[in-house]
């Protein structure tokens, strides 16, 4: 595991931003879980509690016009790009104020305005799409970098392979980030994968360097993120980063995640990015007050977002019939 201490290199402001993002995502998702249990979030939702450092580390390394592609487990990635929390919460609660007006739901958060080009719920599908966005940036000479997040289980589907090869051959400005949380839904990635590191051990199949990073350490993530994003921006082509992490809870909403050994859970809980990054910042001289303020602000934001979403109207039924076509409607006949 590439773990270098580069504390000095990361500006204080960036460090605090990452802490804020981690805390905001954590508090947001804890609330989302509660709202799910209260029956206010319907359908399903997939939390990244325990995995927030990856989104935070990358988010802080991206330029405003860079592009994010993520999965159904995309609350974190959507929030760290600056998507307003009330609009994300609104979407989870199926309100008209949601980023997708209730059409998308938890699994399809999108905020193009903030570079969040969609949350995709079919495993692997968004990797080639992200490559396409990177191709477009290359064609337009826009200097934008695309960052595409996905899980360990995603490395075994065909679209992964096709996207990586195309990106490598066309030297596209895209960074593929495998969030290896050791599990797919309920099955351990190790049980169904021919290599130990599902992403890194396959990098060479695309002429890429293997990169493994501690996904619970926002600074380690950020360092790699900054490096590979710059490389992409400079025309150096794609990268494939494997970030090791763990989700504290189950795969989705009601899953208690009992298929995992307790020692494993305990070991990873001890590496929870929220308290551990907090300790580190305190150790580096950041004032307790400053961190507490960030936390209080996060709580207040989550409260406000929840309240706003609860108060927001449900979409009118007619809204179901809009937005199929670019003309705004859904008619298939003349």
């Amino acid at each position, binding site marked *: 595991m590439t773990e270098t201490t580069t504390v000095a290199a990361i500006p204080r402001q960036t460090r605090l931003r990452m802490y804020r993002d981690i805390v905001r995502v954590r508090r947001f998702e804890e609330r989302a879980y509660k709202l799910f249990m209260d029956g206010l979030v*319907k*359908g*399903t939702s997939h939390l990244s509690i325990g995995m927030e450092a990856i989104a935070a580390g990358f988010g802080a390394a991206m330029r405003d016009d860079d592009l994010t592609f993520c999965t159904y487990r995309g609350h974190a990635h959507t929030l760290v790009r600056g998507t307003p929390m009330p609009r994300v919460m609104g979407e989870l609660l*199926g*309100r008209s104020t*949601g980023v*997708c007006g*209730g*059409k*998308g*739901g*938890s*699994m*399809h958060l999108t905020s193009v305005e903030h570079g969040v080009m969609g949350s*995709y*719920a*079919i*495993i*692997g*599908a968004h990797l080639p799409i992200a490559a396409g966005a990177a191709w477009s940036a290359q064609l337009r000479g826009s200097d934008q970098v695309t960052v595409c997040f996905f899980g360990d*289980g*995603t490395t*075994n*589907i*065909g*679209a992964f392979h096709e996207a990586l090869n195309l990106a490598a051959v066309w030297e596209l400005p895209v960074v593929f980030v495998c969030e290896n949380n050791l599990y*797919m*839904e*309920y*099955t351990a990635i190790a*049980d*169904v*994968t021919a290599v130990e590191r599902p992403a890194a051990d396959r990098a060479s199949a695309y002429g890429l360097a293997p990169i493994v990073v501690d996904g619970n350490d926002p600074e380690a993530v950020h360092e790699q993120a900054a490096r590979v994003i710059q490389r992409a921006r400079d025309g150096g082509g794609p990268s494939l980063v494997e970030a090791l992490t763990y989700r504290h809870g189950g795969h989705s909403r009601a899953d208690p995640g009992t*298929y995992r050994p307790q020692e494993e859970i305990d070991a990873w809980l001890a590496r929870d990015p929220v308290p551990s990054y907090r300790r580190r910042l305190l150790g580096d001289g950041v004032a307790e007050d400053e961190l507490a303020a960030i936390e209080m602000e996060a709580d207040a934001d989550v409260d406000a977002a929840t309240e706003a979403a609860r108060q927001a109207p*449900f*979409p*009118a*039924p*007619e*809204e*179901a*019939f809009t937005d*199929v076509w670019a003309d705004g409607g*859904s008619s*298939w006949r003349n």
Partner: protein
Amino acid sequence: MAELITYRQAVSRAIAQEMRHDESVVFLGEDVAAAGGVFKTTKGLLDEFGDQRVRDTPISEEAILGAAMGAAMTGMRPIAEIMFSDFLATCWDLVAVEIAKMRYMTAGQVRVPLVVRTANGGGLRFGAQHSQSVENWAMMIPGLKVVAPSTPHDLIGLFAAAVRSDDPVMFFEQKSLYPVKGEVPDGEIVDQLGTARTVRAGTDVTVVALAAMVPRAVAAASVLHDEHGISAEVIDLRSLVPLDTATLLQSVARTGRIVTVEENPRLCGWGAEIVSIVGEECFDALRGPMVRVTTPHIPLPSADALEDATLPSVDRIVEAVVKLCR
């Protein structure tokens, strides 16, 4: 003796029945073994049948169906789970271009006796990529049998018929039905593909439904009877291929009217096929237009307020029938 079980429980009972019945039946899919399936439809199978016959796979839908097909061609009777029917799109080549065509291309040298089970349909607020009803995708492919039961009892019997069929069968479990209970007799149940069931007899109009639309059609028939004095005959198709056109045409010949109720989006759903068959073969008996109640031609939205506006409801069925019979 009979017991009351859920459609969900019927799935594991059906698989277990067939695995006991025939050693060559094996079962594979994502999270199906150790975890018992993400819909908890396959609990207990690993314990009873062991990890040779019940297998967890990587997230590799093409490999899942390829494995099933290759095994089916060489003496096994695999059951493959594709977790959500939407994911059939990721392995559609295997379904539509390999599995469906292999026997024909080889002039019958191989048989491909496999079943693809999958959770189909909407109503659970899962959004556009996890809610599609795609039984019409399968119906349009020559070489596939297509089954979609509406009750726990039918599920077991039709599943057994599917596994015992020497042809590939696409078996659609409507996921909104998983919690629904129904009476199921003890012992082995083996039904027959290609047999529709008249769920409720009637004289004024034939309402044709499938899977989750069957209980809605039945509910609509009650309303039609009680509130509108209309006698609706409800037919549960149960399988789309083979299709029980005899039951269908006999009913329409009597009632003179047909309304199809399907979860498929509007264009080229199976309702269109049913209506077309009637319009060609039973035209003279028709007393009015042929009406399809479908999900509108849109991807499904996630929010409950929106999703409820899309799938055919009891109200919409009643309204369509009343308008037709007026």
